[in-house]
């Protein structure tokens, strides 16, 4: 997935390699922070906060071409719109898997 994001930043955003690497690290850091906050919001069934965080994460992820993460985040967002804590928790599993994969 890292390679896919790097390719996107190279081809679509035409970033210099050093900038792209730096931005990938920053993106992962942002993703980690948002996921931590999302976990807490899901646990508290704070659906407004879930929607705000998922919107923000969709933007960041879309910007770097992380499509799989965008899809996973949208699932969490859709669950928050129901609103269903259970559905949010279920959707978070896929997001967490992707986050860990990206952190490898």
């Amino acid at each position, binding site marked *: 997935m890292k390679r896919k994001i790097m390719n996107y930043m190279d081809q679509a955003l*035409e970033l210099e390699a050093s900038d792209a690497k730096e931005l990938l690290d920053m993106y992962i850091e942002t993703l980690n922070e948002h996921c931590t906050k999302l976990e807490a919001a899901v646990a508290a069934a704070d659906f407004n906060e879930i929607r705000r965080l998922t919107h*923000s994460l969709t933007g960041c992820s*879309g*910007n770097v071409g992380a499509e799989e993460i*965008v899809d996973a985040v949208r699932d969490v967002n859709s669950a928050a719109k129901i609103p269903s804590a259970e559905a949010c928790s279920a959707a978070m599993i896929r997001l967490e898997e992707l986050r860990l994969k990206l952190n490898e």
Partner: protein
Amino acid sequence: MPEKIKVLAVDDEKFNLILLRGCLKSDMYDITGCTNAVDALQEFKKQYFDVLLLDVLMPGIDGFELRKLIREIDAERPIIFLTALVDDINTTMLNQISWDPYTYYLNKSFSKKLLSSKIEQAVGVHRSRKTADAYSRKLEDEMALAGDIQKILLPAWCVVDSKTMMGAYYAPSGKVSGDLYEFLHISGGKYLLFIGDIAGHGMQAALYMAAMQSVLKVIIARGNVTPHELLNHLNEFFCSELCANTYMTCLAAIIDFDANKISVQSAGHPGLIGCSRLKENTWRIGDDSRGGPPVGWFESTKYSPEDTTEATFPDDTLIVGYTDGLIDACTRDNQTMNESELFELIGVLSLSSDAATFPYRLGVSLGQLGYDQSPDDVCVVAVQKNTADGVTFHNKVILPKLSMVSSTAIEFAGIIQNTRNDMELATKIEILLYEYLNNVIIHGSEGTRGPREPIYVAMAVNEKEISVRGLDRGKVWDMAGSYQPAPQPLNEPTFGRGIQIIREITDHVTHGCYNGLNETVFSIKLG
């Protein structure tokens, strides 16, 4: 090298700002980032940005609210919304984005090419519009200057000498006009009255007007000419030297105010109208069917003396000429006045007007009758003999210069002293004129542009009172209409300490305003 584009990017997510900065890293862009609307607004007030990139959803003030605040400062600065809401986009959001014509939209998963091209499109359109606006303003300024130059080429709105009085109302449909008029002393009691109308409007007509107005003076300066000779000279100049692709209807009249004779020839132009105020009679001077084609139609045209109308007129005649813009004046439902109605109106108005006020009062009357839409340039000229009408015994036109005030006041006061041997009255007249003229000259032209207009002053007397009449084309000289002197409460003067002094001196003041001409009459009781 293209001008650098200054970008203000606003997103509560720092990562997105850093990404934008990386993405737009080049000599072409200068990016400032803000993570909230308050900071963004401060930055926007501090420095100029060519474009704003706004996130829609932000805590506190969101993107749409921020745009509203920006629009209070600048209605047209381009804004590009970058949002990840593409899947949630609905009619409400589309409406929110699109109601503002200077707002653009881009989905967050843009490519550099797409982002750059959107920014360049928005900034390009805005810069082009600004350039076009600046050019348009420059053109407007130049047109206004051209209008001022036209006024300088024309005679003043009022001309008075020992034999004649002329008044002219000249109203371009835009900033400049294709109409022209001239009133020139030739010799003895002879004067040339010329009225012309270049076909078309705008700058082209105005340039031809300026050329014709100048050549007219040159032809007259060469010496005595007759109407048909003048038209032949003008036609030759128009066709051979000016090579104009248009034409001019016009009318040339030589008026001999000593012999009360007029020679007039028309080149496709509405004829002159004569009005005798004593006989309450109105007539056309000459036959409209006589004369030649408009100047410029045919190079071969020869205007002949046989087509010149010779006529006589009584002493009290008011001679009125006009361009067809007057006839074209229409009501809101596009009705125009027919010529017989106009003829009748001119006759009625002439009974209570002199040459100076007539052209202006005619405009007011047309407006009162509902003919207040003027698609064409309008020019109305009236001339009359400057003979004593039984009461007016001194009149003159003065330049609107402070240096003229004292000499004029002293001149009028001197006449009173010499004719009535009344020092107190002479002093009143001197102070009255001093204060009135100072007011008009100092305050009347405040905030106005263009050449300053001369002021007409006349003094009249009858058994009961002496009156001083002033005509000026400055701002409305507000004496609150008519008033009676103390002990009735006085209205607050609108400007100038002189108004209070004038009220102390005079017994009655009336004021009228006709299409930008102020008429003020001050009366002082005698005995």
